[in-house]
């Protein structure tokens, strides 16, 4: 499936079929082009799920290795970027399930384009990173998957291996904890903020597109 919020990305154009075929045949220069083109996307997903530079780099590298091995099985029903995005997300969640997470100081990531750092009328990037970094791990992964990447709850339950009801509770608690952290940071939205249609904000999650490695 395609997480809906991956549409927030200004994705680089897919490699040409010829380039993908060369990479799938083991042409390492062709694969390097893919790594350079998509490194930022894969690393960003890994960082948001894992919350530390070292874990994110390991997971991002692992995602590219899986990509390299799986390229011969890639079919173009889904766009390559969607397929790779999903692979990065799955790899990062697997890493979290496998290795857990020790509490660490929040590490600010380097934003490629500072013009993107303004993410809301009242919230800045550093506040969001710190608030996510302070979340207990049980809350962080389901909340990131739901509210950053728009995955349906059942997908999150399958990915994390937790019961559906537990996942919902974790997301609700994660939101509550984040709201309190934003309040503590002085973020208070104006009363005019529009909430119309919010109840359907994540229902636009795209259907299954297959192609998962």
């Amino acid at each position, binding site marked *: 499936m395609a997480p809906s919020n991956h549409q927030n990305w200004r994705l680089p154009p897919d490699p040409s079929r010829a380039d993908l075929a060369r990479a*799938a*045949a083991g042409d390492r220069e062709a694969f390097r082009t893919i790594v350079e083109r998509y490194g930022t996307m894969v690393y960003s997903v890994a960082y948001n799920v894992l919350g530390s530079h070292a874990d994110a780099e390991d997971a*991002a*590298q692992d995602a*590219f290795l899986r990509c390299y091995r799986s390229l011969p099985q890639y079919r173009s029903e889904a766009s390559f970027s969607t397929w790779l995005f999903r692979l990065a997300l799955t790899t990062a969640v697997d890493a979290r399930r496998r290795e857990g997470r020790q509490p660490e100081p929040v590490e600010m990531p380097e934003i490629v384009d500072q013009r993107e750092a303004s993410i*809301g009328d009242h919230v800045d990037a550093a506040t969001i990173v710190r608030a996510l970094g302070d979340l207990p791990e049980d809350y962080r992964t389901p909340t990131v998957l739901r509210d950053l990447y728009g995955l349906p709850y059942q997908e999150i339950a399958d990915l994390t291996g937790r019961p559906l009801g*537990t996942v*919902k509770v974790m997301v609700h608690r994660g939101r509550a904890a984040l709201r309190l952290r934003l309040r503590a940071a002085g973020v*208070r939205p104006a009363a005019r903020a529009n909430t119309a249609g919010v109840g359907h904000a994540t229902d636009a999650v795209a259907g299954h597109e297959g192609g998962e490695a």
Partner: protein
Amino acid sequence: MDCGSVRALINRFIDGELGYVETAEFQQHLDFCPDCSEELRELCELRGALAAWSGVRLAPPPGFADRVMAAVQRQPQPGSPRPLGEVVDGALARVDEVLGRVRLPHGRTIPVKNLLGWALAVVALVIGLGRRRGRDATQARTP
């Protein structure tokens, strides 16, 4: 609806899980309750910021592509014969895809493959114990 009931529904409202009647009652309460309205506004602001953050590009550390490619160099060519462990992993993943998952009470799901694995293990154990008992009985009868 009172504030307690509304707060219990806020997340379901955000997730689009409320029915028509519940939504109408929920919004009726918000019209005159500033506290619940503010909580909803803050959660909406939060979700908007999280969705926007998901689109922010974060730079991988310097030399990342070189390290990935060094790791790729150690990989076998795609499509070349894979190590036995990977072949087994791939076969198990394919079995997972075909058999799917079974839903347990409370919403947890487990792969059907795992259930079959456990069933096979129990059968093997029962057969093994049966054969051992048979052997012991034979030895006991032997003078």
